[in-house]
């Protein structure tokens, strides 16, 4: 009789410090994550907003808080410049589409490049001054969230899977609970974006808590080190990639007259690393 030993599924290694200069290639073994800070001062003035299309510029101007509009604009300049760099396309010529919704077939599923240049897949998220873009060869979803206050955590936890609610309730009240909620929520939303339903699928439906072995089959969820005020995660379809590279986009990469390949991307600010 042959004994079978079940090994735990491989987990990707997350690299976020002392990374080599990005080469903007795609690899089935790797997911690239790009973090963007909302530009301020001279960097905000220099942001290459003219590369956005009319609807993106209109939305930039529609935010009630100018800072939210600036983050939106920076995130979309970054999407155009980064994806343009991966696909050798001018940023202003990058075109987008929506894949069919897995629920109803209508074109409001995952955002994608148009026409689809296989095998590039991307996902974008922004919240509270930080944006994140994920790029890979398979469907993926990313989410970054500013950590909410205690009352919001208590309220929103009730929308989660029962086991996730239990884990959050058992965490020590205060910072530990906020962090756990943020990690759970970002895994959840990254997964829902990855499968293309977004929040049309109930957040209570799937378990994305602390036990990775119980996560939905066919997906790998990975926590991402952002900064002390945010939680972030990526969900990747299929077998786990060997590595996840996390880089912060230098403000200059988003400025008029610069490109994304004009310098190396530094790691996160050392004093503000999250686990």
């Amino acid at each position: 009789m042959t004994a079978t030993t079940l090994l735990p599924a491989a987990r990707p290694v997350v690299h976020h410090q002392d990374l080599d200069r990005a080469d903007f290639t795609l690899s089935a073994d790797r997911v690239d994550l790009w973090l963007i800070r909302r530009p301020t001062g001279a960097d905000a003035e220099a942001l290459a907003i003219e590369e956005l299309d009319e609807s993106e510029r209109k939305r930039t101007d529609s935010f009630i808080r100018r800072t939210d509009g600036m983050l939106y604009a920076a995130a979309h300049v970054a999407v155009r410049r980064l994806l343009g760099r991966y696909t050798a396309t001018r940023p202003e010529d990058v075109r987008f589409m929506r894949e069919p919704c897995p629920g109803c077939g209508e074109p409001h599923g995952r955002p994608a490049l148009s026409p689809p240049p296989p095998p590039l897949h991307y996902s974008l998220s922004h919240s509270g001054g930080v944006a994140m873009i994920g790029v890979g060869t398979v469907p993926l979803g990313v989410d970054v969230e500013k950590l909410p206050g205690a009352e919001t955590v208590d309220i929103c936890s009730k929308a989660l899977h029962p086991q996730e609610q239990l884990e959050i309730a058992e965490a020590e009240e205060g910072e530990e609970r906020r962090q756990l909620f943020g990690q759970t929520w970002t895994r959840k939303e990254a997964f829902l974006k990855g499968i293309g339903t977004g929040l049309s699928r109930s957040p209570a439906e799937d378990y994305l808590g602390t036990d990775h072995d119980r996560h939905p089959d066919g997906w790998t969820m990975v926590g991402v080190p952002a900064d002390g005020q945010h939680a972030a995660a990526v969900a990747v379809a299929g077998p786990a990639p060997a590595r996840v590279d996390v880089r912060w986009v230098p403000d200059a990469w988003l400025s008029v007259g610069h490109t994304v390949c004009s310098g190396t991307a530094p790691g996160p600010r050392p004093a503000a690393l999250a686990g």
Partner: protein
Amino acid sequence: MNTLHMSQTYETDNGLVHMTPPDMAVLNAVGLPERTRILEQYVREELGRILGIEPWMVDTTGRPMGCLGIGSISGIELQYRMENTLGVDVNLQRLLLANSAQELIDCLAGQFGPEAHLHGAPVPA
């Protein structure tokens, strides 16, 4: 549904805002225009609390919810607070994709009053 204690005041840069949740009996008794007015004030207060601004500053007609600053977590919070206070179901996806807060107000206003009951809409708790 377990309920949480939810404060009825919040702080802004200009001071404390006291919220006044709608009276359900009134909402079910008055006509649509008055119901809409009451619910607009309530939605302004809930959005103002989440955004940290005074209710009168909330633009209910000119911006999608995302441009008001409502994201997924704040959307869930808003959904829970409204469902808990008004006793009606609020569809999260519709809330997040609403082209304006007015769409939300109109949707809520349609769930109260004698017309709603005649047309088989759920009776708010």
